C-alpha cells in the first residue's frame, strides 16, 4: 500500500483530488462510469439525507456528468436483492471498477460492511451496527429512531475486484481504525484490513488519523512523500498529448 500523510483535512482532500484527476486523465476519456457505493434503505430519493441528495449537492451538480452514467443503489427498489445483483452486473458490464474511492468508519468498516461482514461479500442488504447508527444520527436531528437500520452496500469482495482502491481517512476518531487496518492482521471485524491483500491500495490521511500508528510507520511513509508527490505533480489535463498522459507514472510498485 501507499500511505500518504498530509498535514490536515484540506491538504489530504486536495492531494486525493489531484490524484483522482490524474488517474481519470490517464484512464482516457472512454465510457468512464461512476458507481456510488453505500446507500441506506428506506429514505425517499429526495430526502435531504438520502445519498441521491448528498451526491447531487456535493458532486453531480458541480460537474458535467451525464445522468445515464450515474449508478446509485436504489434503496427504495421493490426487490432489494435483485437491485444489488443488477448493480454487480452493471459493474461487470462496464469493465470493472478502475478506481474505488471510499472512507472508513470508526469501527473500520468500508462502505457499509460492518464488523463481521464477510471479506468476500458482494453487493447486498446489510444491517447497520450501532456505532454507524449513532454516527449518522446527526443527519436526523439526533433522533435515533429516524436513522435507517439497514443499507444497500457494495461488498468487500466487490471492492477487492477493483483495479485500484483509494481510502480517505481524516480525523483523530478514525485513528484507531487506521491502526487496525494497516498495522494489525486481516480481520473481518475491521473490514478495511482486507485491502492488505489488494495489489494496489492508496491510503490518504491527515496527521490526526495517524495518532495510533507506530512512529516508525509514520516516519517511513512520510519519508516517501517526495516520491509519492510525483503522482500528483505534474497535474495532467485532458487537453494534453495522448502519449504523454497515458504513461503510468508509478515510481514503484506496492
Amino acid at each position, binding site marked *: 500500500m501507499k500511505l500518504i500523510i498530509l498535514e490536515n483535512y484540506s491538504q489530504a482532500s486536495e492531494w486525493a483530488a489531484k490524484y483522482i484527476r490524474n488517474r481519470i486523465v490517464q484512464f482516457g476519456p472512454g465510457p468512464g462510469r461512476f458507481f456510488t457505493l453505500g446507500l441506506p434503505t428506506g429514505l425517499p*430519493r*429526495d430526502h435531504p439525507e438520502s445519498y*441521491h*441528495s448528498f451526491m*447531487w*449537492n456535493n458532486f*453531480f*451538480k458541480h460537474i*458535467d456528468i*451525464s*445522468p*445515464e452514467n*450515474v449508478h*446509485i443503489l436504489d434503496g427504495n427498489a421493490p426487490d432489494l436483492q435483485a437491485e444489488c445483483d443488477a448493480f454487480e452486473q452493471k459493474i461487470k458490464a462496464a469493465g470493472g471498477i478502475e478506481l474505488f474511492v471510499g472512507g472508513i468508519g470508526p469501527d473500520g468498516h468500508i462502505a457499509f460492511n460492518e464488523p463481521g461482514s464477510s471479506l468476500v461479500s458482494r453487493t447486498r442488504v446489510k444491517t447497520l451496527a450501532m456505532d454507524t447508527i449513532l454516527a449518522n444520527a446527526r443527519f436526523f436531528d439526533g433522533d435515533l429512531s429516524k436513522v435507517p437500520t439497514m443499507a444497500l452496500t457494495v461488498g468487500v469482495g466487490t471492492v477487492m475486484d477493483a483495479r485500484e482502491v483509494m481510502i480517505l481517512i481524516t480525523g483523530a476518531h478514525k485513528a484507531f481504525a487506521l491502526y487496525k487496518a494497516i498495522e494489525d492482521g486481516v480481520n473481518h471485524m475491521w473490514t478495511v484490513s482486507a485491502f492488505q491483500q489488494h495489489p494496489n491500495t492508496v491510503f490518504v490521511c491527515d496527521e490526526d488519523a495517524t495518532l495510533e500508528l507506530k512512529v516508525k510507520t509514520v516516519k517511513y511513509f512520510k519519508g516517501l512523500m517526495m516520491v509519492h508527490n510525483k503522482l500528483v505533480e505534474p497535474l495532467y489535463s485532458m487537453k494534453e498529448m495522448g502519449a504523454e498522459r497515458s504513461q503510468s507514472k508509478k515510481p514503484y510498485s506496492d
Partner: protein
Amino acid sequence: MPSNKSVSDAPIVQFTNCRILRDHQLQREDLWVREGKILNPEKLFFDEKGSADVQLDCKDSIVAPGFIDVQINGGFGVDFSLATDDFKSGIDLVSQKILSHGVTSFCPTLVTSPPSVYHQVLPQISVRNGGAHGAGILGAHLEGPFISKEKKGAHPEHCLRTFEAGAFQDLLATYGSLDCVQIVTLAPEMRRSSEVIRELTKRGICVSLGHSVANLSQAEEAVQHGATFITHLFNAMLPFHHRDPGIVGLLTSDKIPAGRRVFYGMISDGIHTNPAALRIAHRAHPKGLVLVTDAIAGMGLAPGRHTLGQQVVEIDGLNTYIAGTKTLSGSVATMDTCVRHFQEATGCSVETALEAASLHPAQLLGIEHKKGTLNYDSDADFLMLNDSLYVQATYIAGEEVWRQDVSGM
C-alpha cells in the same frame, strides 16, 4: 449532451454563475427553468435523467424573485382612476414600463372615485399573466371610497362614502363588480365595517386598513374579522400614541388570531416616512413589511402638474403634493428605488430588502406557492441585479422581458 427528458420536451435553461435568493439567503446555486417555472435539477437528473439545453452565464449577478407592487396608482402619464377611452392602452403602457423597475406583477390601484369611474374602469382590468408585453396584473386595489374624512389625504372629499345603510350591498353597488379586485382599503371605524370585512374576506379579497382614525381595538377587531393589511403605515392614520397606538399598534398586537400575520405597506421613498420611523416599524415587525410605491401618473415623467383621479397634483423632485398644498399625494419613486432606499435606511441585509418587495407581498395575497420566491415549481418571474441592487434584467415565465441597455441609458 442529449437530454432524455421523460416529463416534457420543452427546452431547459440553466442560469449559471449567479447568487440566487432562496430560503431567505443568497446562495451560490444555478437556477433551472422549464416551461415558465423553476425546475428542480436534482429531480431532473435522477428521475428524468435530463440535463440543460441552454446554459446562460449570469456574470455573478444576484438573481431574485420579481418585485410585486400592490399599490400603484399609475405612471408615465397614465392615471388608473381616470376613466379614459384608451384606459386599456394606458394600463398596458404602465405594465410594460415598470418591467425596468423590476416589477413583474402588480395591483393597479384606484383612489377614491365616483361610482361611475369604478363602473367604467373595473371591467377593463383583467387578471392576466405577465410576459414581454408587461408585468402581470394580479387584480385591482381599491383604496377608498369607504375611508375616513379626517384622514382622506389626497382623496376627494365629495366622493367619500359610508356603508352604514346597506353594508356589503352598498359596497358592491359602488364598485359595480368585484371580479378582478384583489385588495380593498377601508376605514374599520366605520359602522358595519365588520360585516363588510367578513364578506370581502369570504370572497378571497384582501382587506386593508387605511385612511382611518381607528384606535387599536377597532383595528384589532377588524383583523379578527379578516383584515390582513395596513395601507401605507403611518400615513393617513392616527400617529402612534403610547396609550393608544392606533393602527400602528397592530405591528406588535397580541390579539392577532393564531397563524395569521398582519402585513403593512411602506412607501420607502425617503419622503413619506422618516427613515427612523421606517426603522422602528421594520424592527418591530420585520416579517410583515411590504414595500409599495404608491406611484402616481407623474412617476417616470418630468416634474410638473399631473392628475390623480379627481385631483391635480404637483411634482417637485421626489415630492408630490396636492397642487397648492403640502398634502402628500402618492409618490414618483420606482420600486427598485424603494428597495434600495429601504436597504440603506434600515441597514438590513440584501435578502431582507429583496423579500420585502417580493416574498412578503406574495404572502399577503396568498400566492407564495407560485410568486415571490424561486422555489421549485414557482413561476419563473425573476430579476438579475447587481450588488447595488440595480436591476440589470427582468424575466417573466423564464423569458427575458427587459434588459438594461449596456450603453448605460
